[in-house]
């Protein structure tokens, strides 16, 4: 059967994508199950020979978003191009605080997972597809069903929100204090 041959082999990929979106194994299990059920019921809409993985990812993301809507309302914000320049403000703050090297000197894995759960949709999905999963703007646009310009503006806003949260994390973790003590040792 075509469904077995084309859709089922992508289960590991769908699981990883679901895990990226949910950041929770139990929630990912539910999303994967629902994704495959919906895919099976909608199999007649799949265009043979097209990218089945991407088709499944689109369903997976929609399943995830519906589950999130049930859990809590999503926040819709429109990003603007000024966010691109405003991202420099985060960096300027990091320089002033002496933590501009936080990404190379801190293990941010847990902080990134935590921060991602706080980023509102639609920015979160866009960040996961492009920044975490390292897919192109074009792939993100297709999966999200939006123009490339929208992917771009969502990334500007989403990246700024992420960096603000990671900066807060570094400050809360006392990274500034460590940097200052290193500086004092250098000057001694």
């Amino acid at each position: 059967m075509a469904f077995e041959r084309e859709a089922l082999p992508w289960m590991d990929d769908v699981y990883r994508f679901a895990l990226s979106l949910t950041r929770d194994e139990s929630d990912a299990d539910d999303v994967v199950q629902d994704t495959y059920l919906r895919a099976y019921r909608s199999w007649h809409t799949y265009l043979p020979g097209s990218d089945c993985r991407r088709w499944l990812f689109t369903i997976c993301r929609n399943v995830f978003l519906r589950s999130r809507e049930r859990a809590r309302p999503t926040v819709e914000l429109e990003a603007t191009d000024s966010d691109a320049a405003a991202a420099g403000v985060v960096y300027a703050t990091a320089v002033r605080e002496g933590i501009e090297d936080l990404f190379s000197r801190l293990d941010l894995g847990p902080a990134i997972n935590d921060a991602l759960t706080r980023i509102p949709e639609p920015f979160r999905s866009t960040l996961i597809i492009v920044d975490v999963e390292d897919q192109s703007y074009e792939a993100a646009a297709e999966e999200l069903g939006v123009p490339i310009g929208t992917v771009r503006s969502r990334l500007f806003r989403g990246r700024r929100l992420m960096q603000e949260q990671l900066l807060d994390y570094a400050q809360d973790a006392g990274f500034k204090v460590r940097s200052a003590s290193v500086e004092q040792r250098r000057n001694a």
Partner: protein
Amino acid sequence: MPETISEAIPATCVEVISQLWDHLDNQLCGDESDAVRLHMDECAHCRGLERFQIGYRDAMRSARTGTATAPWHVRARVLDSLADAGFCP
């Protein structure tokens, strides 16, 4: 944080900074990308920001769920629910 962008960023850098992510994401055409690179060669502030953004991108990629595979119980759940919907492998 600074109240305005101009408080934080030199005025000559604002345009380049607004294009920085497009540059890092290979979304600029050749001439535009060359202009950003030329500015970077001369501007320590923007080079620092570029390093900062690359560091962010690398950190985000490290959060990728990597080689995780669907556990057996997920496969079983998927196949059970598909069977209930009429799927016969």
